[in-house]
C-alpha cells in the first residue's frame, strides 16, 4: 500500500490460483458485500452461483428480438404478396403461413441474434470506454493470468482498514487501492 489516495474507488485483491480465488469469492459473498465484483481472464465455471448472482436476463432480449422478427416476416410477406400487390401463382391463396415460412424463420433468427447481442451490451452497460478500474496500471493482468476481487468504496460495508484486512484474510496475494 502506497500513499493515501485522494479519491478512492475500490480495493483490489489479486489471486493467481483458481481454487483459492473461487473460495475467496464465496467468502466475499458471505461477508455481505454488495458492490463488489470479480475479474477473470476467462469465464470461471460456477462463479456466478459462488458470487450469488442470478440468471442472466439476456434471454428476454433474445425472445423479444425473435418475436419481433417473426411478426415482421409474417407482416411483410402478407403485405407484399397478399395485400399490396397480390400475385396469382398456380391458383394458390395469395397468402398463407406456409409458403413464406422460410422468410419468417430466417427473420426470427436474424432479429433474435441482434436482440441477443443488444441484450449482452445493455445488461453489461457497454460500450463504456472509460471506467475507474482502467486507472489501475496493471489492469492488463486480468486478461492474462490473474484474478481480481474488487470491493468498491461505495459499498455500505466498505471500510478502508477492515476491508483491506478482510481481503488479506481471504487470501489475496496483493492488495491495491485504485483511485478514480
Amino acid at each position, binding site marked *: 500500500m502506497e500513499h493515501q489516495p485522494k479519491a478512492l474507488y475500490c480495493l483490489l485483491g489479486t489471486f493467481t490460483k483458481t481454487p483459492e480465488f473461487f473460495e475467496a469469492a464465496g467468502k466475499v459473498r458471505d461477508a455481505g458485500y454488495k458492490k463488489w465484483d470479480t475479474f477473470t481472464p476467462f469465464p470461471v465455471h460456477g462463479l456466478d*452461483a459462488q*458470487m450469488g448472482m442470478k440468471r442472466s436476463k439476456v434471454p428476454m432480449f433474445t425472445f423479444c428480438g425473435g418475436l419481433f422478427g417473426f411478426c415482421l416476416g409474417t407482416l*411483410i410477406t402478407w403485405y407484399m404478396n397478399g395485400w399490396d400487390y397480390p400475385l396469382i401463382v398456380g391458383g394458390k391463396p395469395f397468402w398463407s403461413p406456409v409458403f413464406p415460412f422460410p422468410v419468417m424463420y430466417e427473420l426470427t433468427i436474424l432479429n433474435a441474434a441482434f436482440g441477443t447481442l443488444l441484450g449482452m451490451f445493455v445488461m453489461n452497460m457497454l460500450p*463504456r470506454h472509460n471506467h475507474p478500474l482502467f486507472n489501475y496500471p496493471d489492469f492488463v493482468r486480468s486478461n492474462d493470468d490473474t484474478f481480481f476481487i474488487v470491493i468498491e468504496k461505495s459499498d455500505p460495508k466498505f471500510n478502508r482498514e477492515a476491508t483491506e484486512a478482510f481481503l488479506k484474510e481471504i487470501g489475496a496475494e496483493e492488495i491495491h487501492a485504485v483511485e478514480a
Partner: protein
Amino acid sequence: MSHATAEVTLTPEEQKARSELIAKAKPVDIPRPILVTGGKDFHWVTEKICGIVEGKTPLWWWILFLTAACMATFTLFGLTWLVSTGVGVWGLANPVNWGWAIVNFVFWIGIGHAGTLISAILCLLRQKWRTSINRAAEAMTIFAVVCAGIFPLFHVGRVWFAWWLFPLPNSNWIWPQFRSPLEWDVFAVSTYGTVSVLFWYMGMIPDLANLRDRAKVLWRKLFYGLFAMGWRNSNRHWRNYEMAYLLLAGLSTPLVLSVHTIVSFDFAASNLPGWHTTIFPPYFVAGAIFSGFGMVLTLMLPLRAVYGLHNLITQYHIDCMCKIILATGSMVGYAYAMEFFIAWYGGNPYEGFAFINRAFGQYAWAYWIMISCNVISPQLFWFKWVRENTWLVWIICGFVNVGMWFERFVITVTSLANDYLPSSWGYYSPTIVDIFTFFGTFGLFSVLFLLFVRFLPLMPMGELKAVMPAADAHGHGSGTQGQGVPHHDSEGGHH
C-alpha cells in the same frame, strides 16, 4: 453395491459404505484428453496468441498476401468483363442456364458451414476441443459467405437491379415473390452472413480487450479499444456474455441447418429429374459440413506449422476433425447410393435415366472424380497412422475440397444438360470468364483470411484458458476426471 449406487440420496451410513466399496473396487479413472499440451500456463496462451498479432509481419505473410491480392484481381477482371459485356460471356446456353456461378455459390456457402458447426453445434454438444479452432473457422465462414455471395449477385444478369431481391419499395411498386426458393435463399444467406459476423464479433470482444490493454501504440489502442467496447473481464459481464454466447449457438444451429436446406430447395423444389428429391436437405447439409471441415484442416494445418501451435491444435484435435470428415463423407456416400436406389425403386424412367447418365453419360468423368474424392479418399481416415500423418491429412482434405466442388457441378450441370427434351440437350463448358471469376475468389478468400490472421486474435484466449486444468475451480486440475470417482465438494454445491 447396486443398492447403494441406485439410491439418489444416500444416508450417511450408505454414503460411508459406498465410499468404502469404491475404495475397494478402485474404479478406473477415465482420462479426459488434454486440450492444451506441454504443461503450459495461462500466460503462455496470452503471449502465444497476442504474439501473432503483435509481432513483426513475417515475410511469408507479405508474399502470400501479395500473391492472393493478385489472384483476387482475376475475379475483378471476370466481373468487369461480365458487367461491361453481358451474361453471354459466361458459358451458359440452353439448356444449361445454371453453370459455374451456381456451382461456385453452393461450393463456397458449403465451406462456411463447418465454421458454424464448430462454433455452434459443437458448443451445444460441449465438445471442448472446438476452442482452439472455432475463431479461425468462424472467420473462414464469413469469408466463404463473402465469396459465395458474389455469384448469385452477378448471376441475376443486370447486377444494378440486384437490390430488387430485397423487399424494398421500387418505382414499379412490385415486391419480391416469396414463393420462390431463390427468394428464401436471399433471406437465408443474408441472415447467415449477418449472424455469423455477430457471433464471430461477440466471441472476439474479450480478446480485443486484451489486445487493447496490451497495446503500446496509439492506433492499436484506438482500433482494438473501439471494437472491444470497454470490455473489462468482470464476472458480471462474463455472465451475460456466456448466456449470449450460448443463445447465439442455439440460434446458429437451426440457422446453419436451414441455410443449406434452403440452398438445396433451389434445386429440389424444381421438377427436374436428379434435383427433385427429398433427400436433398440432409444430403446437402452433410456435404457442407464435410467440405467445411476439409477447408478448416486445409487452413489450420499450415497455420499450426508456421506459428508453432502444436500445443493448442493437438493430434487429438486433428483426430476429431478427421473423424467428422470420415462420418460426413460416409453420409455423403450413402446419399449418393440412396439417390440411385430411389431412382430405381421410384420407377420413374426419367429419374432413372438422370442417374445412369450421371455415372456413365457425357459427364461421367466429373461423377467419378466426385466419387473418388468424396467417398473413397476420406475412408483412409479409418486408419490412425493416416490421421497422424499431417501431410496425408492435408492432401486428403485437398481432395475433399475438389470432390465437393465436383459434386455441385455434377448435380447442377448433368441434370440440366440432359433433361426431358432430348432435342435441346447440350454440353456445357465454362468460358475463360467463368474460370477467372472462380479462380479469383480463392485470392479474395485468402486476402481476407490473411488479414484476419495478422490483425485479429486467431484463437479465443478466454475459452482456451477455461479448458486448461488450472482453470478448474475445485482444483481437480490433473487433466483427468474419472467418471467412477466421486469427488466430494465441501464448498461447491453448484454442479
